[in-house]
């Protein structure tokens, strides 16, 4: 303790509030934060160097593993740069499928964030609700791409899997279900006085500060920065779909929540347009193994904001240099500003509100004992539901009522 009554608190790199390693050095006077510094780099895996030593196709899978949540963002951003250098005319159908997966990924990421935000403020019911609903979009992604995360849908010159009419039907149904649930979350966000009270005026970042620190994505848009790469630097199928860029003037964590739930509603609209106007035709063009010399800057609106890749090729089958700037790196630098003059207890939600990335995936489990072997995901889920039903937790009535509501509103929308 210094003579001015200031105490330094070291938080991280491993701690219960965040699932990713980063460390903070916080100076507090009483409960108020007077200064803070962020230390990053615990997750540096040398991917940029590794990419220089692998072929473009290998890099595609490596780049996807930068982040488990916005994996499609990174592979799309990279593949877009490579295709620009090689001057490939990617078929329209492939661009539409990439856009579809990108929006599904945004839904999964924003629902996940909403749950984490609920958890950080002690609203764990919201975590349970949103993560249950997130399963709908995860299942959709798994049926379209084969994977819940790290979809592996992109390849240089197109996509690897086509859509079938049955899959389109199932995706539209999933969008209906999720839209109905999201309406409920919007009601919660707009009406729940505890939530509003807990998030308002927390982690403030004014418009000018948001611009000065170069924040991107929902973090910037919640500070009234009207920027979205999908509209401003359109790529894939975005020039051909209409959607609103959600901007909010609250300039705090509450605003960041409103922006994300608002963006969910836009994503459902984009998905419906994509599936309605899906062009016929091939899903890939043949790409050369050696990419001609050149360089390109590629941008992509990831769920967390602008993702930027710079690729330089030298005419061989391996890139000369790949530079990746993920959105969290742009946003994390504003965190010190957001924490300034706030309370120490607000730190978890303020940090979580920029939605820093972490990854998780589980597909199969092995049982020990008499029933040893592997189970697929549906079996695991059925067993879980059965187990809870035996304990007296039966949601079938609630579920049936909800299904009826989804049916009513999709009928109403179709007129």
């Amino acid at each position, binding site marked *: 303790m210094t003579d001015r009554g200031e105490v330094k608190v070291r938080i991280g790199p491993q701690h219960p509030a965040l699932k990713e390693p980063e460390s903070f050095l916080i100076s507090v006077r009483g409960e108020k934060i007077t200064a803070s*510094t962020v*230390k*990053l*780099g*615990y997750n*540096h895996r*040398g991917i*940029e*160097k*590794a990419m220089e*030593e692998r072929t473009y196709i290998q890099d595609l899978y490596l780049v996807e593993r930068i982040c488990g949540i916005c994996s499609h963002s990174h592979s799309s951003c990279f593949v877009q740069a490579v295709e*620009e250098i090689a001057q490939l005319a990617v078929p329209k159908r492939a661009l539409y499928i990439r856009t579809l997966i990108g929006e599904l990924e945004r839904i999964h990421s924003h629902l996940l964030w909403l749950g984490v935000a609920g958890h950080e403020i002690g609203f764990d019911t919201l975590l349970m609700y949103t993560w249950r609903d997130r399963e709908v979009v995860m299942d959709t992604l798994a049926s379209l791409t084969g994977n819940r995360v790290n979809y592996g849908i992109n390849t240089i010159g197109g996509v690897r899997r086509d859509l079938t009419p049955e899959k389109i039907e199932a995706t539209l149904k999933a969008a209906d279900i999720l839209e109905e649930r999201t309406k409920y979350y919007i009601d919660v966000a707009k009406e729940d006085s505890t939530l509003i009270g807990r998030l308002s005026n927390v982690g403030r970042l004014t418009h000018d500060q948001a*611009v*000065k*620190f*170069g924040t991107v994505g929902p973090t910037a848009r919640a500070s009234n920065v009207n*920027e*979205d*790469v999908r509209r*401003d*630097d359109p790529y894939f199928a975005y020039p051909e779909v209409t959607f609103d860029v959600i901007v909010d003037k609250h300039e705090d964590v509450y605003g960041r929540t409103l922006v994300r739930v608002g963006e969910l509603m836009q994503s459902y609209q984009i998905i419906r347009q994509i599936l309605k106007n899906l062009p016929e035709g091939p899903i890939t063009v043949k790409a050369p193994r050696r990419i001609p010399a050149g360089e*390109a*800057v590629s*941008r992509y609106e990831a769920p967390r904001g*602008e993702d*930027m890749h*710079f690729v*330089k090729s030298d005419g061989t089958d391996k890139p*000369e*240099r790949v*530079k990746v*700037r993920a959105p969290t*790196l*742009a946003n994390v*630098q*504003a965190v010190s500003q957001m924490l300034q003059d706030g309370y120490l207890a607000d730190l978890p939600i303020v940090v979580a509100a920029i939605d820093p990335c972490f990854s998780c995936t589980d597909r199969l489990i092995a049982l020990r004992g008499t029933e040893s072997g592997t189970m697929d995901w549906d079996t695991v889920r059925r067993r879980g539901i059965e187990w809870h039903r035996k304990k007296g937790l039966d949601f079938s009535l609630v579920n049936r009522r909800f299904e009826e509501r989804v049916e009513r509103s999709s009928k109403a929308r179709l007129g």
Partner: protein
Amino acid sequence: MSQEQEIQSALVGRFPELSDKVSVRRDRRILAEVPLARLHEVIDFAVKDLGFNMVSAITGLDERERFAVLYHLNRKSSMMLTLRTILPKDNPVIDTVSAIFPSADIYERELVDLLGIRVQGLPEGRRYPLPDDAPCDIYPLRKPVQTQVPQEQKGETS
């Protein structure tokens, strides 16, 4: 005249020596090759007169006989201006832009840690992205540096 051409002619009008150095790569992408001595003047002009108020990233390149540093400037998310400057290999020193862009700090630390470029005027701070105990004289993104696969992993793949 398109927006891209307007920016191109504004840059050339203010800095005549850039006349054959500014090129429009495609819609919303402009590349300018700027000599190191004029770099800060060009950045100042781009920020104050052309409205490029954000740096999306700074990329360092090892081009064998020299280094290149690329400043990817961004205007209202709809225009990218990349300023490319060349540094000599034997004495790679560049001035910081963190006074203009507070967020540039972390990108400049990458130049320091990964390429061994010295950035003058960079505020004191922890290393990024390498850990504190990483060797100070190996710069991973320099071209001669090869990554080493651990012995046990080699056995598995062969």
